[in-house]
Protein backbone atom coordinates (compact mmCIF):
# COMPACT_ATOMS: atom_id res chain seq x y z
CA UNK A 1 0.00 0.00 0.00
CA UNK A 2 1.35 3.40 -0.95
CA UNK A 3 0.20 6.88 -0.23
CA UNK A 4 1.09 8.73 -3.41
CA UNK A 5 2.59 12.09 -2.58
CA UNK A 6 2.91 14.79 -5.16
CA UNK A 7 5.23 17.75 -4.67
CA UNK A 8 3.69 19.95 -1.99
CA UNK A 9 4.55 23.37 -3.40
CA UNK A 10 6.93 24.78 -5.95
CA UNK A 11 8.60 26.99 -3.38
CA UNK A 12 10.80 25.41 -0.74
CA UNK A 13 10.22 28.45 1.48
CA UNK A 14 6.56 27.75 1.87
CA UNK A 15 5.33 26.65 5.30
CA UNK A 16 1.79 25.81 6.33
CA UNK A 17 -0.04 28.46 8.29
CA UNK A 18 -0.24 27.74 11.98
CA UNK A 19 -1.90 29.07 15.10
CA UNK A 20 -3.03 32.69 14.94
CA UNK A 21 -1.90 33.05 11.34
CA UNK A 22 -4.22 30.25 10.29
CA UNK A 23 -7.13 31.84 12.13
CA UNK A 24 -6.28 35.23 10.68
CA UNK A 25 -6.33 33.78 7.18
CA UNK A 26 -9.85 32.52 7.84
CA UNK A 27 -11.02 35.70 9.57
CA UNK A 28 -9.62 38.36 7.31
CA UNK A 29 -10.57 37.67 3.73
CA UNK A 30 -9.98 41.11 2.26
CA UNK A 31 -13.59 41.30 1.14
CA UNK A 32 -16.50 42.93 2.97
CA UNK A 33 -18.73 40.46 4.70
CA UNK A 34 -22.22 40.08 3.23
CA UNK A 35 -25.06 41.45 5.30
CA UNK A 36 -28.20 39.65 6.28
CA UNK A 37 -30.31 40.28 3.20
CA UNK A 38 -33.69 38.63 2.76
CA UNK A 39 -33.77 39.91 -0.83
CA UNK A 40 -30.55 38.08 -1.70
CA UNK A 41 -31.80 34.93 -0.03
CA UNK A 42 -35.08 35.29 -1.91
CA UNK A 43 -33.28 35.77 -5.22
CA UNK A 44 -31.07 32.72 -4.66
CA UNK A 45 -34.02 30.57 -3.72
CA UNK A 46 -36.12 31.99 -6.54
CA UNK A 47 -33.41 31.20 -9.09
CA UNK A 48 -33.14 27.66 -7.82
CA UNK A 49 -36.89 27.17 -7.78
CA UNK A 50 -37.34 28.52 -11.29
CA UNK A 51 -34.34 26.53 -12.53
CA UNK A 52 -35.88 23.39 -11.07
CA UNK A 53 -39.39 24.34 -12.05
CA UNK A 54 -39.50 21.84 -14.84
CA UNK A 55 -37.36 19.12 -13.36
CA UNK A 56 -38.37 15.84 -14.87
CA UNK A 57 -40.08 17.39 -17.86
CA UNK A 58 -38.90 16.05 -21.17
CA UNK A 59 -37.64 19.32 -22.57
CA UNK A 60 -35.60 19.60 -25.75
CA UNK A 61 -32.34 18.95 -23.90
CA UNK A 62 -33.72 16.18 -21.74
CA UNK A 63 -32.06 12.83 -22.35
CA UNK A 64 -34.05 9.89 -23.62
CA UNK A 65 -35.58 7.73 -20.95
CA UNK A 66 -35.12 4.04 -20.60
CA UNK A 67 -32.89 1.58 -18.90
CA UNK A 68 -29.24 2.11 -19.73
CA UNK A 69 -27.25 -0.99 -20.55
CA UNK A 70 -25.11 -2.11 -17.69
CA UNK A 71 -26.57 0.40 -15.26
CA UNK A 72 -28.64 -0.44 -12.21
CA UNK A 73 -32.31 0.51 -12.13
CA UNK A 74 -33.01 4.06 -10.99
CA UNK A 75 -34.51 4.74 -7.57
CA UNK A 76 -38.24 5.06 -7.14
CA UNK A 77 -39.69 8.14 -8.73
CA UNK A 78 -41.46 8.98 -5.48
CA UNK A 79 -38.17 9.40 -3.63
CA UNK A 80 -36.89 12.85 -2.74
CA UNK A 81 -33.84 13.72 -4.82
CA UNK A 82 -31.11 14.42 -2.29
CA UNK A 83 -28.36 16.66 -3.60
CA UNK A 84 -25.03 16.45 -1.81
CA UNK A 85 -21.68 17.86 -2.84
CA UNK A 86 -20.43 14.42 -3.88
CA UNK A 87 -23.54 13.60 -5.91
CA UNK A 88 -23.40 16.99 -7.56
CA UNK A 89 -19.74 16.68 -8.48
CA UNK A 90 -20.19 13.09 -9.61
CA UNK A 91 -23.18 13.69 -11.84
CA UNK A 92 -21.65 16.78 -13.40
CA UNK A 93 -18.46 14.87 -14.21
CA UNK A 94 -20.26 11.94 -15.87
CA UNK A 95 -23.78 10.68 -15.29
CA UNK A 96 -22.86 7.08 -16.09
CA UNK A 97 -19.93 7.13 -13.66
CA UNK A 98 -22.17 8.68 -11.02
CA UNK A 99 -24.88 6.03 -11.44
CA UNK A 100 -22.32 3.22 -11.37
CA UNK A 101 -20.88 4.54 -8.13
CA UNK A 102 -24.24 5.11 -6.45
CA UNK A 103 -25.13 1.50 -5.88
CA UNK A 104 -23.50 -0.97 -3.58
CA UNK A 105 -20.87 -0.33 -0.96
CA UNK A 106 -17.55 0.91 -2.18
CA UNK A 107 -14.76 -1.38 -1.04
CA UNK A 108 -12.49 0.32 1.51
CA UNK A 109 -9.18 1.73 0.35
CA UNK A 110 -6.18 3.07 2.27
CA UNK A 111 -7.15 6.62 1.28
CA UNK A 112 -10.70 6.10 2.55
CA UNK A 113 -9.39 4.71 5.84
CA UNK A 114 -6.95 7.57 6.26
CA UNK A 115 -9.68 10.11 5.52
CA UNK A 116 -12.09 8.60 8.02
CA UNK A 117 -9.44 8.43 10.74
CA UNK A 118 -8.26 11.99 10.16
CA UNK A 119 -11.87 13.24 10.21
CA UNK A 120 -12.52 11.84 13.68
CA UNK A 121 -9.11 12.99 14.93
CA UNK A 122 -9.90 16.52 13.78
CA UNK A 123 -13.20 16.37 15.67
CA UNK A 124 -11.30 15.18 18.72
CA UNK A 125 -8.82 18.02 18.46
CA UNK A 126 -11.62 20.57 18.27
CA UNK A 127 -13.65 18.97 21.08
CA UNK A 128 -10.98 18.11 23.64
CA UNK A 129 -7.97 20.04 22.38
CA UNK A 130 -5.57 17.14 22.02
CA UNK A 131 -4.84 13.88 20.25
CA UNK A 132 -3.00 11.22 22.20
CA UNK A 133 -2.25 8.14 20.08
CA UNK A 134 -3.72 8.97 16.65
CA UNK A 135 -4.32 5.42 15.47
CA UNK A 136 -5.75 4.22 18.79
CA UNK A 137 -7.90 7.33 19.24
CA UNK A 138 -9.13 7.22 15.66
CA UNK A 139 -9.99 3.52 15.75
CA UNK A 140 -11.81 3.95 19.06
CA UNK A 141 -13.91 6.75 17.56
CA UNK A 142 -14.73 4.80 14.40
CA UNK A 143 -15.53 1.81 16.60
CA UNK A 144 -18.58 3.53 18.13
CA UNK A 145 -19.92 4.64 14.76
CA UNK A 146 -22.21 2.01 13.24
CA UNK A 147 -21.61 3.28 9.71
CA UNK A 148 -17.89 2.62 9.99
CA UNK A 149 -17.97 -1.01 11.14
CA UNK A 150 -16.95 -2.42 7.75
CA UNK A 151 -14.08 0.03 7.49
CA UNK A 152 -12.90 -0.79 11.03
CA UNK A 153 -12.93 -4.51 10.24
CA UNK A 154 -11.03 -3.86 7.04
CA UNK A 155 -8.35 -1.85 8.83
CA UNK A 156 -8.01 -4.48 11.55
CA UNK A 157 -7.60 -7.14 8.88
CA UNK A 158 -4.87 -5.34 6.96
CA UNK A 159 -1.50 -7.10 6.73
CA UNK A 160 0.84 -5.59 9.28
CA UNK A 161 3.01 -3.77 6.73
CA UNK A 162 -0.01 -2.03 5.24
CA UNK A 163 -1.46 -1.22 8.64
CA UNK A 164 1.88 0.30 9.61
CA UNK A 165 1.88 2.40 6.45
CA UNK A 166 -1.60 3.62 7.32
CA UNK A 167 -0.55 4.31 10.90
CA UNK A 168 2.47 6.29 9.74
CA UNK A 169 0.38 8.47 7.43
CA UNK A 170 -2.35 9.04 10.05
CA UNK A 171 0.28 9.96 12.64
CA UNK A 172 1.96 12.34 10.22
CA UNK A 173 -1.31 14.10 9.43
CA UNK A 174 -2.38 14.16 13.10
CA UNK A 175 0.94 15.70 13.98
CA UNK A 176 0.30 18.42 11.41
CA UNK A 177 -3.12 19.07 12.90
CA UNK A 178 -1.65 19.37 16.40
CA UNK A 179 1.08 21.77 15.26
CA UNK A 180 -1.01 23.96 12.99
CA UNK A 181 -4.51 24.16 14.46
CA UNK A 182 -4.87 26.55 17.37
CA UNK A 183 -7.35 26.04 20.18
CA UNK A 184 -10.60 27.64 19.15
CA UNK A 185 -12.21 30.06 21.57
CA UNK A 186 -15.36 28.36 22.96
CA UNK A 187 -17.28 31.61 22.58
CA UNK A 188 -16.96 31.21 18.79
CA UNK A 189 -19.21 28.19 19.12
CA UNK A 190 -17.02 25.74 17.19
CA UNK A 191 -19.02 22.69 16.12
CA UNK A 192 -18.14 19.74 13.96
CA UNK A 193 -20.16 17.74 11.45
CA UNK A 194 -22.99 20.25 11.41
CA UNK A 195 -25.83 19.09 9.20
CA UNK A 196 -27.50 21.53 6.80
CA UNK A 197 -30.59 20.86 4.71
CA UNK A 198 -32.74 22.92 2.40
CA UNK A 199 -35.91 21.78 0.71
CA UNK A 200 -36.76 22.90 -2.83
CA UNK A 201 -39.43 22.19 -5.43
CA UNK A 202 -42.10 21.57 -2.80
CA UNK A 203 -39.87 19.10 -1.00
CA UNK A 204 -39.10 17.01 -4.09
CA UNK A 205 -35.47 18.11 -3.90
CA UNK A 206 -33.32 18.41 -0.78
CA UNK A 207 -29.93 20.09 -0.70
CA UNK A 208 -27.96 18.36 2.02
CA UNK A 209 -24.53 19.07 3.44
CA UNK A 210 -22.52 18.14 6.52
CA UNK A 211 -19.69 20.52 7.21
CA UNK A 212 -16.58 19.38 9.07
CA UNK A 213 -16.21 22.57 11.10
CA UNK A 214 -18.39 25.62 11.58
CA UNK A 215 -17.08 28.54 13.62
CA UNK A 216 -18.98 31.63 14.66
CA UNK A 217 -22.33 32.40 16.20
CA UNK A 218 -25.08 31.88 13.61
CA UNK A 219 -25.52 35.04 11.60
CA UNK A 220 -28.02 37.72 12.49
CA UNK A 221 -27.12 41.00 10.79
CA UNK A 222 -23.79 40.29 9.17
CA UNK A 223 -22.20 37.12 7.86
CA UNK A 224 -20.45 35.63 10.89
CA UNK A 225 -19.88 31.94 10.21
CA UNK A 226 -16.80 30.28 8.72
CA UNK A 227 -17.18 26.82 7.22
CA UNK A 228 -14.13 24.59 6.96
CA UNK A 229 -13.86 21.29 5.11
CA UNK A 230 -11.08 18.89 6.06
CA UNK A 231 -9.43 16.80 3.36
CA UNK A 232 -6.90 14.08 4.05
CA UNK A 233 -6.24 13.45 0.38
CA UNK A 234 -4.85 15.39 -2.53
CA UNK A 235 -6.01 18.82 -3.54
CA UNK A 236 -8.54 18.66 -6.37
CA UNK A 237 -10.14 21.35 -8.41
CA UNK A 238 -13.69 20.25 -7.59
CA UNK A 239 -13.13 20.89 -3.87
CA UNK A 240 -13.66 24.58 -4.57
CA UNK A 241 -17.09 23.89 -6.01
CA UNK A 242 -17.88 21.75 -2.96
CA UNK A 243 -17.20 24.77 -0.76
CA UNK A 244 -19.43 26.97 -2.88
CA UNK A 245 -22.23 24.43 -2.51
CA UNK A 246 -21.81 24.61 1.28
CA UNK A 247 -21.93 28.40 1.13
CA UNK A 248 -25.14 28.25 -0.88
CA UNK A 249 -26.88 25.81 1.46
CA UNK A 250 -25.91 27.89 4.50
CA UNK A 251 -27.05 31.08 2.74
CA UNK A 252 -30.45 29.51 2.09
CA UNK A 253 -31.02 28.22 5.62
CA UNK A 254 -29.63 31.11 7.68
CA UNK A 255 -30.34 34.84 7.81
CA UNK A 256 -26.91 35.55 6.27
CA UNK A 257 -24.46 33.49 4.23
CA UNK A 258 -21.16 32.36 5.75
CA UNK A 259 -18.46 34.99 5.34
CA UNK A 260 -15.87 32.47 4.30
CA UNK A 261 -15.59 28.84 3.18
CA UNK A 262 -12.28 27.00 3.29
CA UNK A 263 -10.66 23.63 2.68
CA UNK A 264 -7.83 22.53 4.94
CA UNK A 265 -5.60 19.80 3.54
CA UNK A 266 -4.23 17.75 6.41
CA UNK A 267 -1.71 16.04 4.13
CA UNK A 268 0.08 19.29 3.32
CA UNK A 269 -1.29 21.95 5.65
CA UNK A 270 -2.59 23.96 2.70
CA UNK A 271 -5.61 26.15 3.36
CA UNK A 272 -7.77 27.25 0.43
CA UNK A 273 -9.98 30.16 1.43
CA UNK A 274 -12.89 31.63 -0.50
CA UNK A 275 -14.57 34.77 0.76
CA UNK A 276 -18.29 34.41 0.15
CA UNK A 277 -19.67 36.94 -2.30
CA UNK A 278 -22.92 37.27 -4.17
CA UNK A 279 -21.15 36.21 -7.37
CA UNK A 280 -19.90 33.03 -5.69
CA UNK A 281 -23.42 32.20 -4.53
CA UNK A 282 -24.96 32.91 -7.93
CA UNK A 283 -22.37 30.63 -9.54
CA UNK A 284 -23.21 27.92 -7.04
CA UNK A 285 -26.90 28.30 -7.87
CA UNK A 286 -26.21 27.75 -11.59
CA UNK A 287 -24.09 24.67 -10.97
CA UNK A 288 -26.62 23.27 -8.50
CA UNK A 289 -29.48 23.69 -10.97
CA UNK A 290 -27.61 21.86 -13.73
CA UNK A 291 -26.54 19.01 -11.43
CA UNK A 292 -29.92 18.70 -9.75
CA UNK A 293 -31.69 18.50 -13.09
CA UNK A 294 -29.39 15.62 -14.04
CA UNK A 295 -29.98 13.87 -10.73
CA UNK A 296 -33.71 14.35 -11.12
CA UNK A 297 -33.71 12.99 -14.66
CA UNK A 298 -31.65 9.96 -13.63
CA UNK A 299 -33.96 9.30 -10.69
CA UNK A 300 -36.84 9.32 -13.14
CA UNK A 301 -35.39 6.84 -15.57
CA UNK A 302 -33.18 8.86 -17.90
CA UNK A 303 -30.36 7.00 -19.62
CA UNK A 304 -27.12 8.20 -18.01
CA UNK A 305 -25.00 10.26 -20.40
CA UNK A 306 -21.34 9.34 -20.71
CA UNK A 307 -18.98 12.27 -20.46
CA UNK A 308 -15.27 11.49 -20.75
CA UNK A 309 -13.30 13.11 -17.94
CA UNK A 310 -10.30 12.66 -15.70
CA UNK A 311 -12.08 9.98 -13.62
CA UNK A 312 -12.44 7.58 -16.57
CA UNK A 313 -9.28 5.65 -15.72
CA UNK A 314 -10.76 4.65 -12.36
CA UNK A 315 -14.33 4.04 -13.50
CA UNK A 316 -15.86 0.58 -13.18
CA UNK A 317 -17.70 1.13 -16.47
CA UNK A 318 -14.48 1.69 -18.43
CA UNK A 319 -14.35 -1.81 -20.00
CA UNK A 320 -17.70 -1.15 -21.71
CA UNK A 321 -17.42 2.60 -22.27
CA UNK A 322 -16.01 3.65 -25.64
CA UNK A 323 -15.82 7.40 -24.96
CA UNK A 324 -14.06 6.66 -21.68
CA UNK A 325 -11.58 4.30 -23.30
CA UNK A 326 -10.81 6.87 -25.99
CA UNK A 327 -10.22 9.49 -23.30
CA UNK A 328 -7.87 7.20 -21.37
CA UNK A 329 -5.95 6.35 -24.54
CA UNK A 330 -5.56 10.02 -25.45
CA UNK A 331 -4.42 10.79 -21.94
CA UNK A 332 -1.88 7.96 -21.91
CA UNK A 333 -0.56 9.01 -25.30
CA UNK A 334 -0.13 12.57 -24.07
CA UNK A 335 1.85 11.36 -21.04
CA UNK A 336 3.99 9.14 -23.27
CA UNK A 337 4.89 12.14 -25.46
CA UNK A 338 6.12 13.96 -22.37
CA UNK A 339 5.19 17.18 -20.63
CA UNK A 340 6.10 19.40 -23.62
CA UNK A 341 3.32 17.93 -25.75
CA UNK A 342 0.95 17.06 -22.95
CA UNK A 343 -2.40 18.81 -22.93
Amino acid at each position, binding site marked *: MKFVRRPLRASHDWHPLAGEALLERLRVTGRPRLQSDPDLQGRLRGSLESGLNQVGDAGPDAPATGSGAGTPPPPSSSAVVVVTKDRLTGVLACEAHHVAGEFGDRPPTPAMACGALVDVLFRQL*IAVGSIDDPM*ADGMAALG*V*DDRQQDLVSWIVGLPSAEREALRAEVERQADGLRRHWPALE*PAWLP*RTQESMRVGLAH*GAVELSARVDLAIGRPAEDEASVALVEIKAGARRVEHRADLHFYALVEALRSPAPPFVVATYYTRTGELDVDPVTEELLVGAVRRTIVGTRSLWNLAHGAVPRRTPNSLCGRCTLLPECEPGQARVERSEAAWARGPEDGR
Partner: protein
Amino acid sequence: MRPEQLTRALMAPPVGYVDEACRTQLRGRLSRELAPLVGRLPHRQRLVVNLADLRRARERPDSLSRQQEPFTWKPVFARRSLGLAVVDACAGGRFRSPAEAVGPVASEAVEEWERSGWRTFHWEPWFAGLDRGARALVLSEAVTWATSLWASFDWAAFEVPPRLGGGDDQWVCPDAGAVILKGRSELRVPVGTTGPEGPGAEGAGQEGAVHDRSGADGAVPVALASVASGRPSDAWAAELAYPALVAALRSPSRPVPARVAGLWPDAGIHLVVDIDGEVLASAVDRVVATVSAMVEARRLPQPA
Protein backbone atom coordinates in the same frame (compact mmCIF):
# COMPACT_ATOMS: atom_id res chain seq x y z
CA MET B 1 -36.57 33.31 13.19
CA ARG B 2 -33.87 35.08 15.16
CA PRO B 3 -33.15 34.04 18.76
CA GLU B 4 -34.85 37.06 20.33
CA GLN B 5 -37.89 36.63 18.06
CA LEU B 6 -38.20 32.95 18.87
CA THR B 7 -37.81 33.59 22.59
CA ARG B 8 -40.46 36.32 22.49
CA ALA B 9 -42.81 34.15 20.46
CA LEU B 10 -42.39 31.27 22.90
CA MET B 11 -43.06 33.39 25.98
CA ALA B 12 -45.92 35.50 24.64
CA PRO B 13 -49.23 35.29 26.51
CA PRO B 14 -51.31 32.32 25.41
CA VAL B 15 -53.71 32.87 22.54
CA GLY B 16 -55.42 29.51 22.29
CA TYR B 17 -57.68 28.02 24.88
CA VAL B 18 -58.47 24.43 25.76
CA ASP B 19 -61.19 23.96 28.33
CA GLU B 20 -61.85 20.88 30.40
CA ALA B 21 -64.69 19.76 28.16
CA CYS B 22 -62.34 19.70 25.20
CA ARG B 23 -59.79 17.75 27.15
CA THR B 24 -62.41 15.20 28.19
CA GLN B 25 -63.58 14.90 24.61
CA LEU B 26 -60.05 14.23 23.34
CA ARG B 27 -59.48 11.61 26.00
CA GLY B 28 -62.78 9.93 25.17
CA ARG B 29 -62.09 9.93 21.46
CA LEU B 30 -58.70 8.32 21.91
CA SER B 31 -60.14 5.63 24.14
CA ARG B 32 -62.93 4.86 21.69
CA GLU B 33 -60.77 4.80 18.59
CA LEU B 34 -57.70 3.05 19.98
CA ALA B 35 -59.48 0.20 21.76
CA PRO B 36 -60.59 -1.66 18.59
CA LEU B 37 -57.17 -1.20 17.02
CA VAL B 38 -55.40 -2.62 20.03
CA GLY B 39 -57.74 -5.59 20.00
CA ARG B 40 -55.90 -6.72 16.85
CA LEU B 41 -52.50 -6.70 18.50
CA PRO B 42 -50.77 -10.01 19.09
CA HIS B 43 -51.36 -11.26 22.64
CA ARG B 44 -50.08 -9.06 25.48
CA GLN B 45 -48.05 -6.79 23.27
CA ARG B 46 -47.76 -3.14 24.24
CA LEU B 47 -47.32 -0.17 21.98
CA VAL B 48 -45.27 2.79 23.08
CA VAL B 49 -45.94 5.74 20.78
CA ASN B 50 -43.69 8.77 20.60
CA LEU B 51 -43.25 11.69 18.24
CA ALA B 52 -40.67 9.82 16.17
CA ASP B 53 -43.27 7.08 15.58
CA LEU B 54 -45.80 9.66 14.39
CA ARG B 55 -43.26 10.88 11.86
CA ARG B 56 -42.19 7.40 10.77
CA ALA B 57 -45.78 6.22 10.33
CA ARG B 58 -46.41 9.07 7.92
CA GLU B 59 -43.13 9.31 6.07
CA ARG B 60 -41.64 5.80 6.23
CA PRO B 61 -44.40 3.38 7.24
CA ASP B 62 -42.35 0.41 6.01
CA SER B 63 -39.82 1.11 8.77
CA LEU B 64 -42.44 0.28 11.42
CA SER B 65 -42.33 -3.40 10.51
CA ARG B 66 -38.57 -3.67 10.86
CA GLN B 67 -37.42 -5.51 13.93
CA GLN B 68 -35.89 -3.24 16.50
CA GLU B 69 -32.26 -3.94 17.23
CA PRO B 70 -31.41 -4.50 20.89
CA PHE B 71 -30.52 -1.16 22.46
CA THR B 72 -26.86 -0.31 22.76
CA TRP B 73 -25.47 3.10 23.56
CA LYS B 74 -24.13 5.15 20.68
CA PRO B 75 -22.88 8.74 20.47
CA VAL B 76 -26.09 9.83 18.75
CA PHE B 77 -28.18 8.41 21.60
CA ALA B 78 -26.16 10.15 24.31
CA ARG B 79 -25.92 13.52 22.58
CA ARG B 80 -29.41 14.73 23.49
CA SER B 81 -29.23 14.15 27.24
CA LEU B 82 -25.62 15.29 27.45
CA GLY B 83 -26.41 18.22 25.18
CA LEU B 84 -29.34 19.26 27.35
CA ALA B 85 -27.18 19.14 30.48
CA VAL B 86 -24.61 21.23 28.64
CA VAL B 87 -27.16 23.87 27.64
CA ASP B 88 -28.54 23.84 31.18
CA ALA B 89 -25.05 24.51 32.53
CA CYS B 90 -24.60 27.38 30.07
CA ALA B 91 -28.05 28.85 30.79
CA GLY B 92 -27.21 28.70 34.49
CA GLY B 93 -24.14 30.83 33.85
CA ARG B 94 -21.51 28.19 34.66
CA PHE B 95 -20.04 28.18 31.17
CA ARG B 96 -19.96 30.54 28.21
CA SER B 97 -20.68 28.00 25.52
CA PRO B 98 -21.34 24.30 24.86
CA ALA B 99 -17.75 23.69 23.76
CA GLU B 100 -16.53 24.88 27.14
CA ALA B 101 -19.17 23.02 29.12
CA VAL B 102 -19.22 19.58 27.55
CA GLY B 103 -16.06 18.12 29.09
CA PRO B 104 -16.75 19.20 32.69
CA VAL B 105 -20.44 18.24 32.49
CA ALA B 106 -19.64 14.73 31.22
CA SER B 107 -16.87 14.28 33.80
CA GLU B 108 -19.14 15.40 36.63
CA ALA B 109 -21.81 12.94 35.55
CA VAL B 110 -19.32 10.07 35.57
CA GLU B 111 -17.84 11.14 38.91
CA GLU B 112 -21.30 11.31 40.45
CA TRP B 113 -22.12 7.84 39.17
CA GLU B 114 -18.82 6.46 40.47
CA ARG B 115 -19.40 8.10 43.85
CA SER B 116 -23.04 7.28 44.39
CA GLY B 117 -23.93 4.62 41.85
CA TRP B 118 -26.74 6.90 40.64
CA ARG B 119 -27.07 7.22 36.88
CA THR B 120 -28.62 10.57 36.08
CA PHE B 121 -28.28 10.05 32.34
CA HIS B 122 -27.96 6.26 32.13
CA TRP B 123 -24.98 6.50 29.75
CA GLU B 124 -22.41 7.13 32.49
CA PRO B 125 -21.04 3.54 32.78
CA TRP B 126 -20.89 3.21 28.99
CA PHE B 127 -19.15 6.56 28.60
CA ALA B 128 -16.68 5.80 31.40
CA GLY B 129 -15.72 2.57 29.70
CA LEU B 130 -14.93 4.15 26.34
CA ASP B 131 -11.45 4.83 25.07
CA ARG B 132 -10.32 8.39 24.72
CA GLY B 133 -11.09 8.73 21.00
CA ALA B 134 -14.60 7.35 21.39
CA ARG B 135 -15.27 9.67 24.33
CA ALA B 136 -14.14 12.60 22.20
CA LEU B 137 -16.62 11.60 19.50
CA VAL B 138 -19.44 11.53 22.06
CA LEU B 139 -18.45 15.00 23.27
CA SER B 140 -18.24 16.31 19.69
CA GLU B 141 -21.73 15.06 18.87
CA ALA B 142 -23.11 16.61 22.05
CA VAL B 143 -21.45 19.98 21.37
CA THR B 144 -22.89 20.19 17.87
CA TRP B 145 -26.37 19.24 19.10
CA ALA B 146 -26.21 21.58 22.08
CA THR B 147 -24.88 24.50 20.06
CA SER B 148 -27.89 24.45 17.77
CA LEU B 149 -30.22 24.72 20.78
CA TRP B 150 -28.02 27.23 22.58
CA ALA B 151 -27.89 29.51 19.55
CA SER B 152 -31.65 29.34 18.95
CA PHE B 153 -32.78 31.33 21.99
CA ASP B 154 -31.97 34.59 23.72
CA TRP B 155 -31.36 33.00 27.11
CA ALA B 156 -31.10 36.30 28.98
CA ALA B 157 -34.64 37.17 27.90
CA PHE B 158 -36.32 34.30 29.74
CA GLU B 159 -38.09 35.76 32.77
CA VAL B 160 -38.04 32.37 34.47
CA PRO B 161 -35.21 29.90 33.77
CA PRO B 162 -36.53 27.25 31.39
CA ARG B 163 -36.44 23.61 32.41
CA LEU B 164 -34.25 21.63 30.04
CA GLY B 165 -35.09 17.99 29.42
CA GLY B 166 -36.67 16.20 32.33
CA GLY B 167 -38.81 13.10 32.25
CA ASP B 168 -41.16 12.29 29.39
CA ASP B 169 -44.86 12.90 29.81
CA GLN B 170 -46.71 9.61 29.62
CA TRP B 171 -50.35 8.60 29.29
CA VAL B 172 -51.77 5.08 29.32
CA CYS B 173 -54.99 4.86 27.36
CA PRO B 174 -57.58 3.57 29.87
CA ASP B 175 -59.66 1.51 27.43
CA ALA B 176 -56.66 0.39 25.42
CA GLY B 177 -54.11 -0.21 28.14
CA ALA B 178 -51.63 -1.65 25.71
CA VAL B 179 -51.09 1.82 24.25
CA ILE B 180 -48.78 4.22 26.02
CA LEU B 181 -48.31 7.70 24.62
CA LYS B 182 -45.00 9.35 25.44
CA GLY B 183 -44.38 13.03 24.92
CA ARG B 184 -40.93 14.54 25.10
CA SER B 185 -39.76 18.11 24.81
CA GLU B 186 -36.33 19.63 25.11
CA LEU B 187 -37.38 22.78 26.92
CA ARG B 188 -40.37 23.97 28.91
CA VAL B 189 -40.92 27.44 30.27
CA PRO B 190 -43.86 29.08 32.06
CA VAL B 191 -45.74 31.69 30.06
CA GLY B 192 -48.10 34.52 31.09
CA THR B 193 -51.22 33.47 32.94
CA THR B 194 -53.43 36.00 31.24
CA GLY B 195 -54.28 36.55 27.62
CA PRO B 196 -57.14 37.00 25.17
CA GLU B 197 -60.26 34.95 25.73
CA GLY B 198 -60.57 31.47 24.33
CA PRO B 199 -63.50 30.39 22.22
CA GLY B 200 -66.64 29.82 24.17
CA ALA B 201 -65.42 31.54 27.29
CA GLU B 202 -67.34 34.36 28.86
CA GLY B 203 -66.37 37.63 27.27
CA ALA B 204 -64.86 35.94 24.22
CA GLY B 205 -64.23 38.34 21.37
CA GLN B 206 -64.36 41.42 23.53
CA GLU B 207 -61.38 43.63 23.13
CA GLY B 208 -59.05 43.45 26.07
CA ALA B 209 -60.77 40.42 27.56
CA VAL B 210 -58.50 38.27 29.68
CA HIS B 211 -58.84 34.80 31.04
CA ASP B 212 -57.19 33.11 33.97
CA ARG B 213 -55.29 30.20 32.50
CA SER B 214 -53.81 28.83 35.66
CA GLY B 215 -54.61 25.24 36.56
CA ALA B 216 -56.55 23.92 39.54
CA ASP B 217 -53.48 24.11 41.74
CA GLY B 218 -52.49 27.54 40.47
CA ALA B 219 -49.98 26.10 38.02
CA VAL B 220 -49.33 28.37 35.07
CA PRO B 221 -49.33 27.08 31.50
CA VAL B 222 -46.04 26.25 29.91
CA ALA B 223 -44.60 26.55 26.45
CA LEU B 224 -42.60 23.62 25.10
CA ALA B 225 -39.79 23.45 22.57
CA SER B 226 -39.04 20.35 20.55
CA VAL B 227 -35.84 19.81 18.54
CA ALA B 228 -35.85 17.57 15.47
CA SER B 229 -33.40 16.71 12.74
CA GLY B 230 -34.08 17.21 9.05
CA ARG B 231 -36.83 19.46 7.75
CA PRO B 232 -40.39 19.95 8.96
CA SER B 233 -43.06 18.02 7.10
CA ASP B 234 -46.20 19.74 5.88
CA ALA B 235 -47.96 18.20 8.90
CA TRP B 236 -45.66 19.95 11.34
CA ALA B 237 -48.43 21.60 13.37
CA ALA B 238 -50.10 18.32 14.33
CA GLU B 239 -46.70 16.81 15.13
CA LEU B 240 -45.73 19.71 17.37
CA ALA B 241 -49.10 19.47 19.10
CA TYR B 242 -48.39 15.87 20.09
CA PRO B 243 -46.23 16.61 23.17
CA ALA B 244 -48.86 19.13 24.27
CA LEU B 245 -51.56 16.49 23.80
CA VAL B 246 -49.73 13.96 25.97
CA ALA B 247 -49.08 16.61 28.63
CA ALA B 248 -52.77 17.54 28.57
CA LEU B 249 -53.90 13.91 28.92
CA ARG B 250 -51.38 12.99 31.56
CA SER B 251 -52.21 15.65 34.08
CA PRO B 252 -55.81 16.87 34.04
CA SER B 253 -55.16 19.31 36.87
CA ARG B 254 -52.41 21.14 35.04
CA PRO B 255 -53.10 23.64 32.29
CA VAL B 256 -52.68 22.46 28.73
CA PRO B 257 -49.37 23.74 27.31
CA ALA B 258 -49.98 27.08 25.63
CA ARG B 259 -47.77 26.50 22.63
CA VAL B 260 -45.01 24.36 21.20
CA ALA B 261 -42.01 25.64 19.27
CA GLY B 262 -40.40 23.26 16.81
CA LEU B 263 -36.72 23.69 16.04
CA TRP B 264 -35.24 22.09 12.94
CA PRO B 265 -31.64 23.30 13.21
CA ASP B 266 -30.49 21.42 10.09
CA ALA B 267 -32.89 23.46 8.02
CA GLY B 268 -32.61 26.66 10.08
CA ILE B 269 -36.37 26.56 10.57
CA HIS B 270 -38.24 27.46 13.76
CA LEU B 271 -42.03 27.14 13.82
CA VAL B 272 -44.49 27.78 16.63
CA VAL B 273 -47.96 26.34 17.04
CA ASP B 274 -50.44 27.79 19.53
CA ILE B 275 -52.34 25.01 21.18
CA ASP B 276 -56.10 24.93 20.82
CA GLY B 277 -58.77 22.27 20.50
CA GLU B 278 -58.44 22.05 16.75
CA VAL B 279 -54.71 21.38 16.64
CA LEU B 280 -55.01 18.87 19.50
CA ALA B 281 -57.72 17.08 17.51
CA SER B 282 -55.33 16.90 14.56
CA ALA B 283 -52.72 15.35 16.88
CA VAL B 284 -55.31 12.78 17.96
CA ASP B 285 -55.91 11.96 14.28
CA ARG B 286 -52.19 11.33 13.89
CA VAL B 287 -52.06 9.14 17.00
CA VAL B 288 -54.92 6.98 15.75
CA ALA B 289 -53.32 6.65 12.29
CA THR B 290 -49.96 5.83 13.85
CA VAL B 291 -51.33 3.18 16.21
CA SER B 292 -53.22 1.64 13.31
CA ALA B 293 -50.02 1.48 11.23
CA MET B 294 -48.01 0.10 14.15
CA VAL B 295 -50.59 -2.59 14.87
CA GLU B 296 -50.59 -3.66 11.23
CA ALA B 297 -46.79 -3.75 11.24
CA ARG B 298 -46.81 -5.97 14.34
CA ARG B 299 -49.25 -8.35 12.69
CA LEU B 300 -46.94 -8.93 9.73
CA PRO B 301 -44.94 -12.16 9.95
CA GLN B 302 -41.48 -11.34 11.33
CA PRO B 303 -38.40 -12.83 9.68
CA ALA B 304 -36.91 -15.71 11.63
